[in-house]
């Protein structure tokens, strides 16, 4: 059985090390927060907060306290606030250890596309280009194929890029792949997924 959304999030949480400051993207990456366990992880919200807490209880929503997805959230005892220039200063400056992001396409050279589909409604890149250019490690969590069954792990991205050669590790429903010299290297297979299945589902070059 390939991993489901929660299993992918749990696997992504294993990537995080005690003491790290981390930025989580929207979608499956958001679920990673549920699986960090006892590790001391501080979540950054790029609109100007370190130490992002869970959603508020009903009635406790504060319009001055939202995350980068514009959702109401809460603060923690460790929380600090700052402006957007400083927020992206810490991102660009490499102070954020890792970003876990969703993707539309990833290529074997680490190119990432996750902000724009030509001809469709383009809402903008938000902070994604800054994050992938700046943070220590870029970990992509996504389904291995799109809803038409076409591989999202490609030789070359077809969509406009968010960043060039920026991805370090890819976690999909089928397993874990690293971007290495010459292509992708299989790090781990999801439970019950064979190496042949993973290779067959991957357009990108897999190297040993």
């Amino acid at each position, binding site marked *: 059985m390939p991993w489901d959304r929660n299993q992918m999030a749990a696997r992504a949480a294993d990537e995080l090390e005690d003491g790290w400051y981390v930025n989580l993207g929207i979608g499956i990456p958001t679920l990673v927060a549920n699986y960090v366990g006892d590790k001391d992880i501080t979540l950054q919200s790029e*609109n100007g907060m370190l130490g992002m807490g869970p959603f508020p209880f009903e009635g406790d929503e504060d319009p001055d306290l*939202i995350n980068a997805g514009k959702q*109401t959230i809460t603060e923690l005892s460790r929380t600090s606030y700052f402006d957007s*220039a400083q927020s992206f200063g810490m991102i660009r400056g490499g102070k954020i250890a890792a970003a876990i992001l969703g993707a539309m396409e990833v290529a074997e050279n680490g190119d990432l596309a996750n902000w724009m589909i030509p001809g469709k409604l383009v809402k903008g890149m938000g902070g994604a280009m800054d994050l992938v250019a700046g943070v220590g490690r870029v970990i992509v969590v996504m389904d291995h194929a799109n809803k038409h069954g076409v591989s999202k792990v490609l030789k070359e991205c077809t969509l406009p890029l968010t960043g060039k050669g920026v991805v370090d590790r890819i976690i999909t429903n089928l397993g874990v792949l690293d971007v290495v010299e010459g292509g992708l290297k299989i790090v781990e297979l999801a439970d019950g997924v064979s190496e042949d299945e993973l290779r067959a589902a991957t357009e990108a070059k897999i190297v040993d």
Partner: protein
Amino acid sequence: MKKVYGSADEALDGLLSDGMLIAAGGFGLCGIPELLIDAIVKSGAKDLTVASNNAGVDGFGLGKLLDTRQIKKMMSSYVGENAEFMRQYLSGELELEFNPQGTLAERMRAGGCGIPGFYTKTGVGTVIAEGKDVKQFGGEDYIMEEGIFADLSIVKAWKADDTGNLIFRKTARNFNPPAAMCGKICVAEVEEIVPRGSLDPDHIHLPGIYVHRLIQGEHEKRIEQRTVRKREEA
């Protein structure tokens, strides 16, 4: 010099002109200068270029200035929570310059610091880099981005003293300090103005040197995505 004005209309008197560049604070609907936006709507100033991370929603925030067709161009990182915005953009009535969020913030900060350009790794190898100067530092490519020098800044803070020293609250700080810094003139709206000496000087987030005019008012502070958890989950 008196910085405190009685209303948003009075605070903007003589500052607005057609075709000007306005830098606005706020992220989504959080920490937006809603009273000053309303006053700009009333003024009828048009052909505005607005540098703001987002463009509001239909009928609120910068969405009001879109409804009245007063904005010619937006410089933003994320838009489209707004049907009227997309309609004007797709029909070619509205220009849009996408900026990566951190690049937009730094362009404002740089402008406010007298820095006309800087190099960043953000956007290298993407459409954002097209037409921009590329320079290598330490063997890696960086692209040049220009500082933003706005004609007018409009920002929202939580508290101010009468000299314009500002304190923000939680994530409502966001783009407000860099937006305030990059304008020739900055007008701030706050929830409370207190007499000088009432704020701890060590707790000022933005010194009053950046703030020229100031108003106090009531804010709607609309929530864009209300997300909660149930009490019993505690």
